């Protein structure tokens, strides 16, 4: 059929991607967060979750939310090559989302990290899970990373001691606007893995089951008036 051939032309070539095995992380509050790969059929919930943050300019939430919204829509419509989405959920309620993709069998490109539930290092854990997937499960050699905010720079460029690729610009540039690109190589990953990556596997069946269906968060601390503010 003409439509099928056209659709084939519009879709990117696919690499084989090993699924990410779900894991369970106990956060400092005692809450248990399941980190697992999201499925395309969960796109609606993911987009609904991200939408309110388009209007939150503080801490660069608006640009991260806008870009992640388009990434997930692109992934859903098969217009972004070899992308994966990991979600962190506490009893099904989404606490954070990360997006990333394979540019080639060896090189990964980290897209975005969005934390909805703040104060518990959810973002740090989901970013680490992203790196774990690229290097341990997808067996890649390195991941290109950029930061849009100072917090991102501190958590990734400094804490992971990433290698700068600025001197190889423009041959090496990150698709998110060509801003200074850094790389997490396998060597660097092995050095920090013990301190950064955690979680227990396998996740008990009933806990994985409780993470389906995913639910939109009940409050957004980044959006004023999204919950009752305590006053004096």
């Amino acid at each position, binding site marked *: 059929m003409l439509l099928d051939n056209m659709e084939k032309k519009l879709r990117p070539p696919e690499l084989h991607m090993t699924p990410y095995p779900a894991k369970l992380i106990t956060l400092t509050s005692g809450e248990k967060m399941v980190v697992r790969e999201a499925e395309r059929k969960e796109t609606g919930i993911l987009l609904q979750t991200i939408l309110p943050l388009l209007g939150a300019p503080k801490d660069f939430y608006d640009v991260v939310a806008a870009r992640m919204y388009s990434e997930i829509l692109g992934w859903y419509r098969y217009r972004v090559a070899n992308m994966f989405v990991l979600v962190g959920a506490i009893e099904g309620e989404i606490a954070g989302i990360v997006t990333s993709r394979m540019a080639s069998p060896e090189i990964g490109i980290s897209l975005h990290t969005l934390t909805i539930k703040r104060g518990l290092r959810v973002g740090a854990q989901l970013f680490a899970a992203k790196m774990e997937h690229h290097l341990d499960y997808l067996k890649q050699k390195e991941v290109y990373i950029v930061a849009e905010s100072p917090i991102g720079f501190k958590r990734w*460029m*400094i*804490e*992971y*001691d990433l290698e700068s690729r600025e001197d190889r610009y423009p041959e090496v540039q990150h698709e998110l606007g060509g801003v200074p690109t850094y790389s997490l190589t396998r060597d660097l990953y092995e050095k920090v893995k013990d301190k950064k990556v955690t979680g227990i596997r396998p996740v008990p069946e009933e806990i994985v089951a409780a993470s389906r269906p995913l639910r939109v968060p009940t409050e957004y601390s980044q959006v004023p008036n999204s919950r009752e503010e305590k006053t004096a």
Partner: protein
Amino acid sequence: MLKGVRMINIDFSAYEETRPKVEGVVCPTCGKLHYPAPMICDRCNTRRDPSGARYSRWETTELEGNCTLLTWTRVHALPDGFDIPFLQFGIVEFSNGLRASGLLKSENPEIGMQLTAIADVVRETGNKKEWGLVFVT
């Protein structure tokens, strides 16, 4: 000697390139060692004047060599200007009784271990190099 030119005493050693040192001072009256330099000796009340105009400048004593590690830490949250993941620091005691804080370069630090104190670059702000104590095994 040119007419009208008076003989002046200039200390040309100020222009010599010296090996950087980290120094304490010695009270000229009672000999107590101090690090860092105070403006008055807390033992005998002798005053110090860094300009030398009103009181003596006090002799210096170099902090270097053998010292004992009193305590240490590895810090992962560094202030502005440090783009590295962590730094190790320690407080040591020298055999002359002086104590000091400094950078610690040791793989497996332990309280009570013997270290050697050397002067080295500890911070670079723009073009300026700042010297301080580094404790090595």
